[in-house]
């Protein structure tokens, strides 16, 4: 049930290294940002204000999201994900992915770790793409605001077209990935 499978020890060291690297890059960027704000003092107000708003939003949702990811990987059996979002899930899988993505659950960058959790449990690539895309552009409370500002006709038409194209896109990308992976395996076999 561990989140990282296979070659544990070497994987762990590699993960630690990339973790340290990420924190160093973060430090450098924070310093660079502060220096830039020092050079443009008139911009520092709006920049800091916007970053602060996003940071607050993050503090309010990120812990909950991480707890959900943790609970998900411990409690939801692989068979369930495979059954509803895996290879044989078909149209049902597409619908479930769209509905999961539509739930009001925060900004896009939170969707990626969740998508990985689903992928690890055996969800199909096409459904993962559909899930991320639905998450990005069809959020339930958000759509009420779209209707309010852009009208019901605009909203419904945009959503219908988006759902259709997102489903098509998921399937195309899955085919491309499967095709290139197969090619790679063939080349590796020859070597």
């Amino acid at each position, binding site marked *: 049930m561990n989140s990282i499978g296979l070659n544990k020890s070497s994987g762990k060291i590699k993960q630690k290294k990339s973790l340290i690297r990420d924190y160093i890059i973060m430090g450098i960027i924070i310093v660079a940002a502060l220096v830039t704000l020092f050079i443009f003092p008139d911009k520092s107000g709006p920049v800091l204000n916007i970053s602060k708003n996003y940071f607050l939003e993050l503090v309010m949702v990120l812990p909950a999201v991480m707890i959900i990811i943790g609970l998900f990987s411990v409690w939801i059996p692989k068979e369930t994900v495979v059954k509803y979002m895996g290879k044989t899930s078909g149209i049902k899988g597409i619908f479930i992915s769209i509905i999961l993505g539509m739930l009001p659950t925060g900004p896009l960058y939170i969707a990626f770790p969740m998508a990985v959790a689903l992928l690890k449990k055996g969800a199909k690539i096409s459904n993962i793409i559909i899930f991320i895309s639905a998450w*990005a552009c069809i959020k339930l409370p958000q759509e009420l605001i779209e209707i309010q500002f852009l009208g019901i006709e605009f909203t419904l038409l945009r959503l219908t077209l988006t759902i259709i194209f997102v489903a098509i896109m998921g399937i195309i990308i899955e085919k491309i990935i499967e095709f290139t992976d197969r090619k790679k395996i063939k080349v590796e076999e020859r070597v």
Partner: protein
Amino acid sequence: MNSFLKNYLTVIIINLIAFIWFIFSLIKDKNKTKESLKIALKTLFRTIPVIIIIIIFIGFLLGFLPPDIISRIVGEQAGFLGILVTAVLGSVLFIPALISFPLAASLLNGGASIMSVAAFITTLTMVGIVTLPLEIKEMGKKITILRNVFSFIFAVIIALIMGVIM
């Protein structure tokens, strides 16, 4: 109260889901809950640096390119080239929906075409240049590039169809 609910609806819902699920988990199996917390912490520390970097970028982007300048750029575009320009702008920018819809409405009122507004909103949500590093880190280069390129192309197609229908 109403606007409070609107702004914090997602926050409330997601925290409620996490809280209720966590309590259930705790009642059913303490060890599994402990394990899930470990995974949660590990994922948290892995994602924090990239997310902080993204937040800094968003701050700079919107701080140096405020909504009124964006609306001027989008409003001035016309024709197919205009759609492409607004689609690119929508891909690069990262604006929360709460701001993007009123912005789009003001663009429409200001005389921008339905096509460019649709292209703007669709790429704004589906294509994420700013979140690219995180997406690559989590999903891998191949899926990320394919998803963003196709999203861009389909966003333009969606915009064109909407322009024809409406």
